[in-house]
């Protein structure tokens, strides 16, 4: 190491440099505005727009929505399907994810792969394939419960990934061994140790599942069930102001869900902090 370059240039800029807000930072603020806020404002305006009997509409379209018996029936159908989907998903996926992480870690990449299948196989392809197959079995095909089983598949990636992240955060192998060492069976470990520490992952994934089951349009439309999104779409074909009012109602319900999700998410971060102390 013969010669060293000079330690520091003679001219030194003294003022501390505040880092500039980077370009993409600004872009995302604009994008959020363009993609979420502008459509929503236009939606709200529209839901109060149009003229009814020569007067401005006011809450007219909202009143129309609530007066329509199909509103309640389609809404409750969607809620029922969503809750069934969540219950089925949790019952299947929590033990599966636990078992894979604990005993079959080699299957984890396989599960990662399986869990993207529902994105990669376009729903339209699946349904075009399913319809001719299902049509003969009218006792399933004609009941909305068929959607439960389809939505479980479509929501699987979200719940599984949420559980996967939750399980990675808790040092599962050691906790399970510690629990076994304390005398607990695997089942006992799942119920007393794993599930309490996965609480926020389960709740977070469940909300996503609800949101997906509540919002899915393509499949229920193709299978001709009058779920809530199908109802919105049909109204939109005839009275667009009423559809806008419906969409606003739907958004408010969704936001209530999102706020719950955010609160749970904060709880989740506390768990992550606990995990970080390891």
């Amino acid at each position, binding site marked *: 190491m013969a010669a060293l370059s000079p330690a520091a240039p003679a001219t030194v800029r003294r003022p501390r440099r505040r880092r500039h807000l980077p370009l993409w930072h600004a872009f995302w603020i604009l994008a959020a505005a363009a993609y979420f806020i502008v459509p929503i404002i236009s939606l709200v305006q529209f839901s109060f727009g149009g003229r009814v009997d020569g007067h401005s509409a006011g809450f007219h379209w909202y009143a129309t929505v609530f007066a329509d018996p199909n509103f309640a029936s389609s809404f409750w159908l969607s809620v029922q399907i969503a809750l069934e989907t969540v219950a089925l998903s949790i019952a299947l996926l929590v033990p599966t994810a636990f078992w894979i992480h604990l005993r079959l870690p080699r299957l984890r990449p396989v599960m990662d792969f399986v869990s993207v299948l529902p994105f990669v196989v376009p729903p339209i392809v699946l349904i075009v394939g399913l319809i001719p197959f299902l049509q003969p079995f009218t006792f399933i095909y004609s009941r909305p419960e068929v959607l439960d089983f389809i939505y479980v598949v479509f929501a699987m990636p979200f719940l599984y990934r949420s559980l996967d992240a939750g399980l990675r955060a808790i040092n599962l192998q050691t906790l399970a*061994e*510690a629990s076994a060492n304390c005398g607990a*069976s695997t089942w006992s470990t799942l119920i007393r140790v794993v599930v309490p520490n996965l609480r926020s992952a389960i709740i977070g994934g469940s909300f996503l599942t609800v949101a997906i089951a509540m919002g899915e349009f393509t499949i229920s439309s193709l299978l001709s069930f009058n779920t809530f999104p199908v109802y919105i779409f049909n109204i939109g074909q005839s009275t667009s102001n009423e559809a806008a009012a419906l969409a606003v109602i739907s958004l408010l319900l969704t936001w209530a869900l999102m706020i719950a999700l955010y609160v749970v998410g904060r709880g989740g971060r506390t768990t992550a902090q606990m995990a970080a*102390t390891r």
Partner: protein
Amino acid sequence: MARVELRGLHKTFGGGTVALDRLELDVASGELVSLLGPSGCGKTTALRIVAGFETPDAGEVLVDGVDVLGLPASRRNMGMVFQSYSLFPNMTAKANVAYPLRIRRRPKAEREARAVELLDLVGLARQVDRYPHQLSGGQQQRVALARALAHEPAVLLLDEPLSALDAKVRVQLREEVRRIQLELGITTIYVTHDQEEALSISDRVAVLAEGRVEQIGTPAEIYNRPRTPFVASFVGTVNQIDAVVVSPAEGAVRCGERVLVVDGDLSGHAQGADVGLYLRPEDVVLVTDEPEGTPGASGTSGASGTSGASGKVRSITFLGPVTRVGVDCELGALVADVASDVALGLGIGDPVTVVVEPGRMRTLV
């Protein structure tokens, strides 16, 4: 209390790695035996087989003479402390300690009383209601120890419980682990890669290498009478010196131009055979080559040693109580640990005479 015997434990992992090679180990009732070795020597695998988290390919694990390998981990009645923090994050310290009793459906009052009592034993009487993330690393391992003791296990297993902690906390906690182990008289297997930890805490130390016990004995036996080059170099620091046997009967060897008498049995060696000598740094005495009348650097021992080899100081490393001095001399490159105030008079390049008392230079038994 329970007696633990490991009989011919054999374990091969995928890829053909031999983790355990017919391991044999006896742990007497109430004894603390350390499994000491570098990573990959099989010490953790052995412990995990005893705990029931791994299944051996062959062999037996006997607790009081009964093979427990057929039992699942949850029914082996052993308490284990893990290397990484293993407390349940959703439970307080008290709930963690009470967990083994909750699993056993003991009455709430009983398990709470016992949890508080154990947390008191490990010095956390005031932290009973804290959650794991509110505790320091050392405190978490104390809780883990209390939890491992809650169901009065027959055997306590510790898998490098202190390796994630700071040096000061580590020393403090190992003393407490030993105190509690002696107080309860519980049979204990302690896995560690830290030789000082193993020496300081154990009744006996088993040094493992490549899935086998290289040597088992009291800490002093392991340190002073290592049986293999591996044990000699893994436990403590050691100078290794090549020599040739001159007279097996008298224990005399030739090393360079010198003939030395060594400690240890040479009867297994023929005259003229190569032999490795070993010498602890604290047994190397340095005498500064000063004018007559001035006492040598190491004071009294001076020229009375049998083998004065002249050499030169190569390096000086201050370690606190002792200073490690590297010396190049006729015996080779040696390191000597000398009291730091003695070493203050030394500088790099100074001529010194290396003196070793006859009994200190040893061959492997």
